[in-house]
């Protein structure tokens, strides 16, 4: 199996600027086309472990990031994203191209992958049991996810928990973990060996950098697992580490609130989520100290 790392930098750039680079991430193949060097830089740094697919073959998503045309490209270059002729985002400064690619890939999945029940959540796994971290932006979800994977938990996803409706299995889609603002320094200090992309400042989300997914997580992207815990994280400066159980019916509604397509799936979404809630223990989790958070997660008891 060829991976992105098997390409030289020149080959990578040529493919991206030409027919495209077909990269497999979990169940999806994305055909990425872009002449922009920031895209090649980010892919070379963070996607080396991912399988390459035939650029002429089937791709789930055809992602195109191009430069603005006309004279604008000389004085304020921008990057435009389109997928299958749709242009869902406003153009961004060219320096934001790699974060835009990551957001574009998330957008492709969250708007199209309705074969799954999709929850806005990070997912990590250890010893065959997964913990889902559903949370809105700003809750410390990605920081916690990055810390956990740097301590041996397998990364299934930072953004999207994908549940197969027919059996409730969690399907991995491990991609770089998006870190924002202060989280970047926090993770640099917590995991000095972690590979992080160059921070991009002044994006709509502030300063953004991406953490490379562990190679072992990418290698196991075909291995499904089962959710055992649902943990709603909330970072609060100075807060004591605290896990508080949540009643199942309440947890159900809160997970549904964080779903991308619960409503679209109708009764199937209800049945799928009910099965997940049934097999999981659910908690609110307040934390301010990552080391203590790691201990709390390591001590989670499997549900009875």
């Amino acid at each position, binding site marked *: 199996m060829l991976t992105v790392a098997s390409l030289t930098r020149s080959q990578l750039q040529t493919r991206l600027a030409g027919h495209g680079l077909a990269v497999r991430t979990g169940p999806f193949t994305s055909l990425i086309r872009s002449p922009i060097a920031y895209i090649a830089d980010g892919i070379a740094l963070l996607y080396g472990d991912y399988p390459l697919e035939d650029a002429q073959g089937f791709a789930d998503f055809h992602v195109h990031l191009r430069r603005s045309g006309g004279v604008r490209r000389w004085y304020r270059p921008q990057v435009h994203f389109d997928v299958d002729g749709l242009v869902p985002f406003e153009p961004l400064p060219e320096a934001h191209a790699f974060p835009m690619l990551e957001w574009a890939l998330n957008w492709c999945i969250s708007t199209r992958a309705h074969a799954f029940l999709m929850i806005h959540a990070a997912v990590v796994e250890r010893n065959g049991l997964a913990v889902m971290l559903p949370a809105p932006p700003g809750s410390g979800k990605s920081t916690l996810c990055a810390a956990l994977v740097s301590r041996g938990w397998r990364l299934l996803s930072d953004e999207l928990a994908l549940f197969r409706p027919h059996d409730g299995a969690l399907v991995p889609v491990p991609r770089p973990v998006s870190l924002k603002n202060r989280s970047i320094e926090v993770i640099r200090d917590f995991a000095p060996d972690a590979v992080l992309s160059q921070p991009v400042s002044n994006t709509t989300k502030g300063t953004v950098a991406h953490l490379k997914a562990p190679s072992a997580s990418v290698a196991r992207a075909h291995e499904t697992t089962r959710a055992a815990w649902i943990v709603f994280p909330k970072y609060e400066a100075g807060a004591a580490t605290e896990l508080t159980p949540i*009643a199942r019916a309440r947890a*159900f509604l809160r997970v549904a609130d964080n779903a991308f397509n619960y409503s679209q799936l109708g009764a199937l979404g209800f049945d799928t989520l009910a099965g997940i809630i049934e097999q999981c223990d659910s908690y609110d989790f307040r934390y301010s100290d990552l080391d203590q958070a790691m201990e709390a997660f390591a001590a989670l008891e499997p549900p009875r």
Partner: protein
Amino acid sequence: MSAGDTWRLRPGQAVRYRHWDEECVLYNDLSGDTHLLGDAALELLLTLQHGPTTEAMLAAVLKAQFDIADDELAAETAALLQHMNHLYLIETLAC
């Protein structure tokens, strides 16, 4: 509405629910919403699954299952039925 009214499930409601720890989540087939309901509301829905039932009979079902004072029974029953009526789960047959 009065105690003499007869209630039924709105046609198309399958009463698809999961019950945990004295609460349930119920999928509303007509609105696509999911509701958080208590045991008493669920008991009324499960009774109505067997067919249209008078409000007085539904009050008797609640009386048998839950610790409700006699002087509050009619009002409690009416309030629960009204709530579920507003959620498009049930409707009255009274004209």
